[in-house]
């Protein structure tokens, strides 16, 4: 158990929409990176592993700016929004194998003031694994962007299991409620009711405007090291008990899956829980990649927090609220905090496990789960322990 690699540093920039970060995408990520390194009590010079987010910068750039003279391990996991959590597992493996000692995981972008999140994929599909397929078989029919791609899954789920718009709305409202407890959240101070949700315009029916994540500027970063090295450092180490990744089949085409709801997490979650030797019921909270409301619901099912088809019922009755049976995204998530590509789900999990989640602390939090979702349903999961 003591051999588990650890997260020893976390860092974030402010998150904002207007007027924008005022920084380049690289500078923004470097701000978060230096904050994470400082939080760990390290100097940038000792970072010898860097895992950048896909298409948002190269390890060489980070190393040159930070002064990492001994970079040994540079890798990117190409699973879109699933990459930060997938990188936790890879970084843990790297430090345990001696490939690197201190691995930096940065992520961030000007998703509001730069190329908007909505534009990044719909007009440049080459950035995703199924790019040529989307270009030749989706875009000519106006099936151009993630909310549209995923909403066909949501509709099919509604048809097969009776999932309702009110249940999706409950997720959006819960994330907004949590954002009221997080002064950094872009939606802090802007509450939302279920009626507000239901009145919001249809973007990609069944997805309303409020089913969709925010577009924001911001960055976050974490530093991973070995258990042995973690003992010498300033911050309280958070153990990576286990991690796993998975892909749907086929991963590059969303319509021809025999099992329409089997995504990457369907493979990854049982593996991660198995390796950690615990089950979903042993978890004190979950940070679930919530690019859209239904993706959160679907991941709760595929991760095993409830059975497939029961996600709609599961999110009702305050179960996923702070104080409920399984608090989900206590920071407000991509839906109401900011879209930091999943990295702020990891930083929030670490704050919870350190007992530093002021005003929104999950009482006695000892074990937490973080998931990632990207591209056409790639999945990742990490189980963290204080």
């Amino acid at each position, binding site marked *: 158990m003591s051999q588990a690699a650890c997260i020893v540093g976390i860092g974030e920039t402010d998150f904002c929409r207007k007027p924008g970060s005022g920084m380049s995408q690289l500078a923004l990520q470097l701000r978060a990176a230096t904050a994470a390194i400082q939080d760990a009590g390290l100097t940038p010079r000792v970072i010898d592993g860097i895992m950048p987010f896909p298409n948002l910068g190269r390890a060489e750039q980070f190393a040159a700016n930070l002064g990492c003279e001994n970079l040994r391990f540079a890798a990117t996991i190409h699973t879109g929004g699933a990459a930060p959590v997938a990188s936790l597992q890879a970084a843990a493996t790297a430090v345990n194998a001696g490939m690197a000692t201190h691995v930096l995981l940065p992520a961030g972008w000007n998703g509001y003031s730069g190329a908007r999140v909505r534009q990044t994929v719909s007009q440049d599909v080459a950035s995703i694994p199924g790019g040529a397929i989307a270009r030749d*078989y989706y875009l*000519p029919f*106006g099936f151009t962007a993630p*909310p549209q791609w995923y*909403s066909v899954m949501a*509709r099919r789920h509604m*048809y097969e299991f009776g999932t309702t718009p009110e249940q999706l709305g409950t997720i959006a409202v819960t994330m907004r409620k949590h954002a009221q407890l997080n002064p950094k959240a872009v939606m802090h101070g802007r509450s939302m009711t279920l009626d507000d949700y239901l009145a919001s315009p249809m973007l*990609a029916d069944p997805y309303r405007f409020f089913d969709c994540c925010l577009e924001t500027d911001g960055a976050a970063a974490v530093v991973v090291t070995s258990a042995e090295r973690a003992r010498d450092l300033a911050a309280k180490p958070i153990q990576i008990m286990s991690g796993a990744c998975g892909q749907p089949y*086929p991963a590059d085409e969303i319509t021809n899956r025999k099992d329409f709801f089997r995504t990457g997490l369907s493979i990854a979650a049982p593996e991660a829980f198995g390796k950690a030797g615990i089950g979903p019921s042993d978890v004190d909270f979950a940070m679930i990649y919530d690019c859209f409301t239904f993706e959160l619901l679907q991941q709760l099912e595929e991760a095993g927090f409830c059975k497939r088809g029961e996600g709609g019922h599961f999110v009702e009755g305050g179960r996923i609220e702070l104080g409920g049976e399984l608090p989900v995204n206590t920071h407000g998530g991509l839906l109401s905090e900011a879209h930091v590509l999943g990295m702020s789900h990891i930083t929030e999990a670490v704050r919870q496990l350190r007992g530093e989640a002021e005003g929104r602390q999950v009482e006695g939090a000892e074990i937490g789960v973080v998931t990632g979702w990207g591209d056409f349903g790639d999945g990742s999961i990490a189980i963290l322990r204080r």
Partner: protein
Amino acid sequence: MSEYTKPLPELEGHTKDFYGFCKQGELHFQRCSACGTWRHVPRELCAECGSWDWEWARSSGRGEVYTWTVVGRALHPAFQQSCPYAPTVIELEEGVRLLSEVLDVAPEALEIGMPVEVVFEAVTDEITLPKFKRVAAS
């Protein structure tokens, strides 16, 4: 006639053949010559049995609505004038699914299981897209 501004497929490799058949007014998919499995989108070998032998086989063009989304706000500038429209997954009789659109049914009238049949829409001199229309239940 105004210029067609929506995105078009790039006619390369098997995709050139797929849309070439559409231009002739026929819907074809790859079918494995060894095990008979139909597939879409085009692949190099059969994921079911591993055979490299395949042929373009003509689909009946009949199928049903599997799921869809209704785009109320376009996220690609070329589709701004088309809203609301409904990208629809059609499950064909052969078992493959195709992302397309049902031309003669309003988005709010779509239903899962609705029987449909392929029609062809020549959008440019070069490109013909496979679309669908509603048919009576058999």
